């Protein structure tokens, strides 16, 4: 390589390095805010239009079929949430009987946000929302839709926007528990396309198809009882300490327009 190319590489690398340093110091914040302020509204409109186009793409009779489909989807999700809430309430009731000073907490502080973009980096499965640090959003907070269906966690929070890492992202890890007799716990991981997998489930614990998976509450920020999905298949190997469940998420990640971020559990 000729010396001038090495020099040019050095110059380019130094300028990029300085840009990165200035970002972390905060000197670029006004420029970044301005860019986000310009991009966000238009992105939001384009994204909403894109989602509605995608939703109608595979329907033969768009209007009636679409309405019926959306109503059924909503009913199914609400029914799943109600089932889990009932089971959790029963468990909590039993615990209360055994303790003298236990107070159940079931209300979360949360904030709503709108999705303005998706999958910025082709190797990630993410959503961009129009709320950020200014709205008390922090990395690691769970993100839900509906009445408690988990879609992922906040990966990064900027001042006015935030990035949600969806649960089917290859770097997503969520502590989950199965609503079975053994209350099996494991780690729900993404990176398998549409489905996710729950790994590190003890081999001796019994799990069935259609068992519901919820968050276990064993990780920071993520409270217990948020619905993840249902067991679609089970993978077991002899002489292995753990088995694996393939999970179909309750939510379709393609048509999310609004989300709620759980910012605290009082």
């Amino acid at each position, binding site marked *: 390589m000729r010396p001038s190319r090495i020099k040019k590489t050095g110059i*380019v690398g130094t300028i990029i390095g300085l*840009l*990165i340093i200035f970002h972390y110091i905060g000197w670029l914040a006004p420029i970044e805010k301005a860019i986000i302020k310009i*991009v966000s509204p238009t992105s939001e409109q384009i994204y909403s239009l894109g989602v509605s186009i995608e939703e109608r793409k595979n329907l033969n009779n768009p209007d009636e079929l679409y309405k019926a489909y959306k109503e059924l989807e909503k009913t199914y999700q609400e029914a799943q949430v109600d089932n889990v809430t009932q089971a959790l309430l029963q468990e909590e009731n039993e615990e209360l009987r055994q303790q003298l000073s236990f107070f159940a907490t079931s209300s979360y502080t949360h904030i709503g946000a709108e999705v303005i973009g998706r*999958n910025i*980096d082709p*190797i990630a499965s993410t959503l961009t929302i129009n709320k950020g640090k200014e709205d008390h959003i922090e990395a690691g907070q769970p993100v839900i839709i509906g009445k408690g269906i988990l879609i992922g966690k906040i990966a990064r929070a900027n001042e006015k926007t935030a990035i949600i890492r969806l649960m089917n992202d290859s*770097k997503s890890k969520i502590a989950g528990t199965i609503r079975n007799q053994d209350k099996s716990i494991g780690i729900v991981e993404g*990176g398998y396309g549409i489905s996710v997998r729950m790994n590190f489930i003890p081999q001796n614990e019994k799990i069935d198809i259609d068992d519901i998976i919820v968050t276990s509450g064993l990780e920071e920020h993520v409270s217990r009882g948020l619905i993840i999905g249902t067991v679609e298949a089970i993978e077991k190997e002899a002489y292995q300490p753990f088995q694996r469940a393939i999970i179909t998420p309750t939510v379709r990640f393609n048509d999310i327009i609004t989300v709620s971020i759980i910012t605290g559990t009082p």
Partner: protein
Amino acid sequence: MLRIALKCILVIGSIFLLTFLQTSASFLLPHPFVKINIVFLAMIFAILLYESGNIVWISAIAHFFIELFASTPFGIILFSSTMSILAAFWLYQTIFTNRSWYAAMAMTAIALIMYRILYLFIFIMIEIITEATLSLVNWGAIAKTIFWEVSMTTIAMGILYVLLSGIFKKLNHHVIYS
């Protein structure tokens, strides 16, 4: 003066358009076409069309915009992409000097592979420094996605080059110019 101003407006407008496409519209494409890296495709095509080193700086600005909406720590995409586009420009100047669709595809594939190698290297370094558990990352899924990204973007470049070589005479190897 007016011409320069108009050029600047056009460049900035194009960068915003690319950002909109990458953040809000690229997901509409079916799998595996959704993996096409639109910004990279545009930058490589700009190198082929304009043959100017300024494309490296335009790429840096475009990926700076993309960084604001990415989930990775700030700097990974910006540094990897800028270095890869710089290398792609040098590849064009020294190796892929013939104006052909297969040279364009080769350049795209090599530049994207370099981009992802740099990206993963910096990502692994950050994971090591922050003492994260590398074994928990789904490397198989990442490798598969990178394969689709490189393949689809390269094919898209080939098709784009063939289609646009009829419009832009610069891309046509039959046309001789100085």
